[in-house]
């Protein structure tokens, strides 16, 4: 009887520990893609930082990345991007999402994202993200279907032809439980 009580006391806190967990972003690749009739360009950053706090109420994740860390391979283009998206005035892209704990185990996570970028806050509902486990780490991949008009960005032009409105951002982020 005594051993059963001891076992019960040991086992009880386990769900509490599991619920109040934290995640940290250990590796990330974020890439924007622009399309123009004569240009296809990608800009990549590996400098995002992120954290996730889980409790019984669910998990809150935050990812942020400085705009100036995106590199398209051309310093002139990167500076123009910074100007166009008002990157000195709003230097960070901030993404927040809230998920139920149960969603973290799904192969495809249906997320509602809140994105702060270029002085605008835009919500993207039902963005599917793919989840792959690598030991304790979890890799999340997907694409945010961002557009210039969502963030009130004046589309840059080349030879008087503006880029396409779509600027999809691909995400590859590896999270580790703390």
């Amino acid at each position: 009887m005594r051993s059963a009580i001891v076992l019960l006391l040991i086992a009880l806190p386990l769900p509490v520990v599991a619920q109040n967990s934290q995640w940290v972003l250990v590796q990330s690749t974020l890439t924007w893609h622009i399309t123009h009739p004569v240009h296809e360009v990608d800009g990549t950053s590996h400098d995002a930082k992120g954290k996730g706090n889980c409790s019984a109420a669910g998990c809150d994740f935050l990812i942020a990345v400085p705009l100036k860390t995106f590199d398209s391979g051309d310093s002139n283009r990167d500076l123009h991007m910074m100007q166009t998206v008002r990157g000195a005035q709003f230097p960070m892209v901030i993404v927040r999402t809230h998920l139920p704990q149960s969603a973290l185990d799904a192969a495809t996570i249906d997320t509602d994202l809140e994105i702060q970028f270029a002085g605008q806050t835009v919500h993207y509902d039902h963005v599917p993200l793919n989840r792959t486990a690598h030991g304790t780490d979890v890799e999340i991949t997907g694409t945010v279907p961002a557009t210039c008009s969502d963030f009130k960005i004046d589309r840059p032009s080349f030879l008087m032809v503006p880029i396409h409105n779509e600027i999809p951002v691909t995400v590859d982020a590896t999270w580790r439980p703390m």
Partner: protein
Amino acid sequence: MMTFAQASGNPHVIFSSSPAPSSSSLVSSIVKELPDAPVPTDGQSTAQQNQSPSQSQNQTQNPNQRPNQPQPGNAPTLGDLGFTPQQIMANADLQRKLNQRTHDLKVHQTLGLVTVVPLCATVIVAGGAKAKRNRADPTGPPIAPSAGAVDLHAALGASTAALYGFTAYYAIAAPKIPGVKPKGAIKLHRDLVWIHAPGMILTPILGGMALRQENNGEKVHGIASAHSYVAWTTVGAYGASIVAVSWPLHLKFWEKR
């Protein structure tokens, strides 16, 4: 051609983000089986969206964005992520510089392309502006060009040089952004200045010398005889500079994505 699907490596995601309503029943049935496309909203809940669809295109504007503001519950904040204050602070002066830089470089780009017109015209009329060998009397003196042809060539050359000067001014006047080193195609674009800028100065000087020698009844000689070589080198470097700043060109733009 790279497509969104190729860019993301995730065709499922691309399908989901394709807003393609169709009247075709086949397409409709396929679309019905797909998950809902991600849609940007205005910070309202989905229910609110349904009540007022006209608001769904609006975004929340936060000109005084405060990324460090506390979040409800146990949601992490930017302060938890360890960014330095310099990384997250707005810099109005830098934004002003970036705006001025973009303005100046847009003028630079426009003037640079406009300069191509008199540049090409100068080259085209160049043939009529130089003395030609008399085929009827090969041993006799060369036939002098008409004054009109020479004047046209000189006027177009002067226009080219003037426009080039204005073009260069806007590139030089554009504010420099501290800590940014030229990288990529822009580096070659800037390096080519060392060829076409001296060429743009030297070409009209040599042309003037050549014209003076011809007017004196002399055969063009000395450094003046390099006028056309310097001019062609300048034209080549100028053209390469335009291509360099546009590189890499996606040439198969006619392909359907």
